[in-house]
């Protein structure tokens, strides 16, 4: 198995954050394969995934301001337009038209299945489609993303080999278990989640989003729409489950 941060993965499309968590006038700070990202939405709803660095003096854009149409860098107030990343205004020289050279490094991104997906490098001329395109018959609910201080490789390997048994044996209070965990591709697993009380099972997808060599975000989603009355309880249940997965994978670090 190649290391999660093999250069070839830079051409893959990864889920990075739930769409609903990139609200208006907010800048979501993230990483992907060691690349720092600033993810933001303009007031028309268009999503942007930019290198988190102002090309002027290298200041992180994520500490700046989302004005609804641009990002304004916190250091000198330079403004960069949504979608193009082009600098539109330099306050120190207010009458000057900024050269087209002054541009933020932007990455391709789309929104689908409830996530913002980002690709760091163009892979030939492929259209942007999320890894493992899911068929349209699905009714997906995204769950809380779980930030885990463990490599993607460790998490994936543990999920495939040890997760089912350990969760069942060690965490009866979770209220649910995972079974039939299988890898669909390097960063996506599919599983059946079983509710211990009702014995109902539902298909689940687990995406792994490598932040850095040592940190991963687990993005789980279920193939089911969850009715409002039980929504909060279900979210809590799954959050406990993935919190446990996170804790085990992080504890595994201590053994190395």
């Amino acid at each position: 198995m190649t290391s999660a941060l093999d250069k070839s993965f830079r051409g893959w499309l990864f889920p990075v954050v739930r769409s609903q968590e990139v609200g208006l006038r907010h800048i979501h700070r993230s990483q992907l394969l060691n690349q720092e990202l600033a993810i933001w939405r303009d007031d028309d709803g268009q999503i942007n995934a930019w290198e988190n660095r102002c090309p002027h003096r290298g200041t992180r854009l994520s500490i700046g301001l989302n004005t609804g149409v641009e990002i304004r860098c916190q250091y000198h107030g330079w403004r960069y337009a949504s979608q193009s990343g082009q600098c539109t205004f330099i306050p120190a020289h207010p009458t000057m038209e900024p050269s087209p050279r002054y541009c933020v490094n932007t990455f391709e991104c789309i929104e689908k299945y409830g996530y913002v997906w980002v690709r760091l490098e163009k892979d030939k001329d492929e259209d942007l489609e999320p890894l493992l395109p899911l068929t349209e018959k699905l009714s997906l609910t995204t769950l809380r993303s779980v930030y885990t201080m463990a490599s993607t490789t460790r998490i994936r390997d543990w999920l495939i080999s040890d997760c089912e048994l350990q969760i069942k044996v060690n965490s009866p209070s979770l209220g649910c278990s995972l079974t039939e965990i299988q890898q669909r591709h390097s960063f996506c697993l599919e599983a059946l989640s079983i509710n211990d009380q009702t014995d109902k099972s539902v298909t689940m997808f687990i995406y792994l989003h490598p932040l850095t060599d040592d940190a991963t975000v687990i993005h789980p989603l279920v193939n089911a729409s969850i009715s409002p009355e039980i929504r909060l309880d279900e979210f809590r249940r799954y959050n406990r489950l993935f919190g446990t997965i996170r804790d085990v994978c992080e504890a595994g670090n201590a053994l190395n």
Partner: protein
Amino acid sequence: MGQPKMVESSVDQLPSRLVDDPAWSGRTVVDDWQVVGSLDQIEVGVNYQTVLLDVPITFNVTGSREVRAWINTGCGSQTSSSASVRLKTCVQYRYIWVSLGQPMQNIFEIPEYYEPDRRNIHAATIRVKVSAPRAIENFLDLAHFPFVHPGSLGEEPFTEVKDYDAVILEESNEVLAQKCCFWQPNAMPTATEGYEVEYVYRVPHPYCAILYKANAIDMNRMDIVSIFVQPVSEEECNANMFLAMIDDQNSDTVIRSFQLQIFAQDKPILENQVPKRLPLDLRAEMSVRCDALSTTYRRWLHKRDVRFGTIPQ
């Protein structure tokens, strides 16, 4: 506190990276004086540990204001019977300066320091997770005032930076920028209203910068705000803020507080710059006209072959 056996500093004692570096032939940074602390924050007779240019050192100050400094060749802070490498030291402007090598010149002059009515104040030493040159360049920058220091050094929409002169002075080997003007709502503790302030910037040392601004009460005299930066590692530094003011109204605490407030506004900007070391290749980061002092500073560092804390061309 026992006295370690002292030997003169020699090239062999320093990390090989500093020695193998081609810049060693000029020994710009290693031979130069570097600030390591303020007398105001030092207790007499106590050993202080610090790191200078990636080299762990210890220093102390005696009752007669004599400074001793040495490279830690033993383990940690305990003085041992094995030889320690003694370093050249001096005290200037009530700061302790150390050289890892052989200083060829004195520390730069600030004649105003000796004026009888001058308030010479050490504001504070603050550790910043960025290279020393980035900290200096931020100090030399005007265009950030309305965004980082709103209400004091700048205010929107008065964001325009007019052209100014920035030059390398060959004889003194310093950088100088004059006629730097900016409208400031509250330029200093003695200011009672906003006005257009004129700055002079002077960089007499790769990691030290001084600015001169007209005193709010007596426009013929200049207040001095300066930053003497200790290069701890290539991506971390200790910033010492030294002020030499004409001010008969405000207490030391008030003057310090004003300066600390300003610096603490710059700190998160500095700690969010990527990369932490200063790129000397002028194409690495985009510059506009108001960045003349910044680009001059980068050219000067390149000319002097300053490699510590920079990304050379």
